[in-house]
């Protein structure tokens, strides 16, 4: 009975962490910690009675890996593999432990075993490659990636998911070259999944290869001509690629496909804003605001659009205030309200109220500190200005230290 309960608990835990795409009930870090402790407790009790219980050992080791205690997890997996040495999944976890402990030899050994035991198991190979990505363990790095890529030829479209995940791992590891190959394999294997195109295109765009990004999205548009999402993403990429006219065109098509989508209108408005088409942006964002009056983001951007016109200050103020009422946690709204009261109305007392909120919520917002110092000075509150300056300097120093540590 205890084993069943323990495994069920651990299973529930991993179902939550493994499945990124499935919607999950809201879980807080505290909930997770509580659940983890409960699972561990149960699994340990099982192991006290049956020290060689494979399932309990495996699950306890997994939970331990999740906690980042790689040394303890390593010992548990070693024990597990002593009982059942031919399980590639356990070797993959052992590799994870080796990476976590920066143990090149251990990682190389685990990778060899995976290759030996499951040379064509895409899931295990891809997971191992993901864990090795960016680890800097040169004894292994590279080989596992090529192995996964060599398996692509024999896969079906449903396996495109693994290549998409692999690409994300390498992208996260700042290895755009491998990430590109993995994302491309995902598109080739599964051209019917829109997100595969999006990931590849965004990667190209981030790398400055905007022409390639644009080309990928052209392929996506061809494949999904009636997809609003694809049009929106294509517009986004075209904007990043410096093709504002094409971005606008895609976004307008999206708006035609779904003229009552506030999200689509918001993006269209943002593109118009970026293109300095302020009167058009105002019309679009006002339309979006009518459709979704309770959307803080739309109110915020509508405020920005009005701010760009010489006589739109009052309307900007209305929108920013509405945005703030809807989402009182957005630091940038406080900043813009502060800026508006500071620059346009010279009402420094009111500006201070907003700017204090902005820096409390986003201490890294340097411009807000600058304006707050200025506002205090204008009010003759020199001590507060000096205090704010000190606070700002501390933040900068901390930031510099963190950068240096990186």
């Amino acid at each position, binding site marked *: 009975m205890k084993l069943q309960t323990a495994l069920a608990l651990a299973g529930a835990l991993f179902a939550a962490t493994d499945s990124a795409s499935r919607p999950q009930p809201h879980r807080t870090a505290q909930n997770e910690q509580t659940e983890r402790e409960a699972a561990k407790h149960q699994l340990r009790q099982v192991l006290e009675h049956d020290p060689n219980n494979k399932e309990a050992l495996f699950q306890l080791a997994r939970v331990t890996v999740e906690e980042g205690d790689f040394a303890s997890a390593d010992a548990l997996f070693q024990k597990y593999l002593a009982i059942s040495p031919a399980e590639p999944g356990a070797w993959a976890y052992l590799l994870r432990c080796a990476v976590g402990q920066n143990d090149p030899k251990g990682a190389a050994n685990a990778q060899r075993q995976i290759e030996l035991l499951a040379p064509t198991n895409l899931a295990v190979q891809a997971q191992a490659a993901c864990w090795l990505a960016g680890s800097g363990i040169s004894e292994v790095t590279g080989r596992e990636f090529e192995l996964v890529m060599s398996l692509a030829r024999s896969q079906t479209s449903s396996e495109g998911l693994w290549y998409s995940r692999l690409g994300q791992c390498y992208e996260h590891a700042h290895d755009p070259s491998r990430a590109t190959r993995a994302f491309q394999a995902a598109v080739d294997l599964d051209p019917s999944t829109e997100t595969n195109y999006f990931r590849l295109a965004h990667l190209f765009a981030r790398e*400055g*290869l*905007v*022409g*390639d990004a*644009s*080309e990928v999205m052209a392929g996506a548009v061809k494949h999904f001509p009636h997809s609003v999402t694809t049009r929106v993403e294509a517009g986004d990429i075209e904007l990043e*690629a*410096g*093709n504002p006219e094409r971005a606008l065109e895609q976004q307008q098509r999206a708006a035609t496909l779904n003229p009552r989508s506030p999200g689509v209108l918001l993006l269209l408005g943002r593109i118009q804003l970026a293109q*300095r088409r302020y009167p058009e942006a105002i019309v679009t964002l006002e339309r979006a605001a009518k459709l979704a009056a309770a959307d803080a983001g739309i109110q915020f951007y509508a405020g920005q659009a009005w701010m760009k016109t*010489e006589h739109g200050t009052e309307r900007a103020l209305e929108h920013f205030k509405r945005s703030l009422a809807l989402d009182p946690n957005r630091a*940038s709204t406080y*900043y*813009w309200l502060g*800026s508006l009261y*500071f*620059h*346009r*109305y*010279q009402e420094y007392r009111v500006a201070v109220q907003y700017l204090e909120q902005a820096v409390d919520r986003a201490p890294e*917002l*340097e*411009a*807000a*500190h*600058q*304006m707050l*110092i*200025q506002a205090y*000075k*204008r009010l003759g509150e020199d001590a507060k*200005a000096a205090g704010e*300056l000190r606070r*700002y300097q501390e933040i900068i120093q901390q930031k510099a230290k963190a950068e240096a540590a990186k």
Partner: protein
Amino acid sequence: MMGLRQVPAVLLSLFAAVTTTVAPIRFEDGRAPQFVTRTGRTARKYLPQTMGGGVAVFDYNNDGLLDIYVVNGATMPGLLKDGPQYSDRLFRNNGDGNFTDVTNMAGVAGQGFNIGVAIGDYDNDGFEDIFVAGVHRNTLYHNNGDGTFTDLTERAGLAGPDPQYGTLWAVGASWLDYDRDGLLDLFVVNYVQWDPKTEPVCEKRGLPDFCYPRAYQGVPNSLFHNNGDGTFTDVSPVSGIRQSIGKGMAVAAADFDGDDWPDLFVTNDTLPNSLFLNQRNGTFKEAAIENGIGFTENGAAISGMGADARDIDDDGRPDIFETALLNETMPLFRNLGQVGFEEITFASGVARASRAKTGWSNGIYDFNNDGHKDLFAACGHVMDAEGSLRATVPQTNIIFANLGNLNFAEVTAAAGVVLARRGVHRGAAFGDLDNDGRVDVVLTELDGPLRILRNVSPAANHWLLIRTIGAKSNRDGIGTRIRLVTEDGVQYNDVGTNVGYASSSDVRVHFGLGRRTLVEELELFWPSGTHQVLKNVKADQVLTVLER
């Protein structure tokens, strides 16, 4: 004046817009010498090819006429001047509207890929010397006083690589006497860490193009103390200048905090501006944020380009006009004294017209001699002129007329057909080339010709040009503050040569006097501390003032 400070700038601008008419500003083509600023165009794009174009107007032979010195690029990625097309050039003003190329005789053809130029008489011998800022190589030319120059970079101690960053890429420089010892020191603006071997490859719309500045690491600027024996000491670390890492583009030197010691404002590309306040003990304190000048009201660091610091509202405090990238506007910061700066870009009317431009060298000069300093910016986009964004790269320049009361009106279209010409403009130097009392502009274009915009503004306004000769102070009188009083009121201006981006302007100080033919009082506050007052000075002359 004090009363006006209480009124919000936006109200003043509305008031001014309906009550003020402005004397026209007009330019026409002057006879510019034949010269093309070469960028060493290549299929592969190298960041220095977006820059360059520094130009200076100065009187190298003391004949009372402004000559022109213009720097040039080189092959890329070799950074070599392997032919006369890459030569830097010195053009002597013949006084009849024509110029003669005296480069070879003067010995200033230069080496390497040069970006900017700064003029100052660093050895107080009465002849203007030249500092050239370049990619991985700077040059100091000493003016021998006989029409020739000698490259004294090594001997002066200005040739060495940076101990941490190696050879630096300098964009421009400013001669200033930061310790007020009567000798001009040198502040050098450095851009980014750059090596042709590691130049990243970027593209726009599928075509190769220049990378954004975020692809490069920043560097500190440099400050060199003049030892008075022809050598300089790098005081960047001890002065505190080195503590600030930026991507410097331009510097404006002025006494921003009113303590009679020169401070420095530096624009940075995609990083907040820097304001180095002189602590009067050989050190500087970076204080841009606390003085409200690090960021614009948009809250993001802009691509700061050129800078000029002069008093646009004649309240005795130098204000700042900065240029920036397309869509960022060209920020105008009003100096409020102890409380720092306020940005008046929107309220002044500068935002709307400047938003559509990428500005480079800029200046605050009274082009129509009406007694109010106007604004000029040389414009051209950063991207490759042959790339996919080619249509947006060449741009027209922009002029704002000062309507008074901190309100400006864009008058580019009315300023003549020469202003309708598009180009990839970069450098701009300001000075009265024909001594007619109207400030002319010398402009450079990347891979385009040197141009002279001859000021032919028709208003019969009066003017005064003041040449300061220091005795206790540095001989150029750089850093001298001048207060001028006429029946119309008070005006202020400072002596200095570094203006805008990469360029160097007439050391003589220009004042437009409107209808006034007499300057009732002229006060000079020299860097040495000397206070000099002249009474009843006649208008329409070049006045030389010796420090006494």
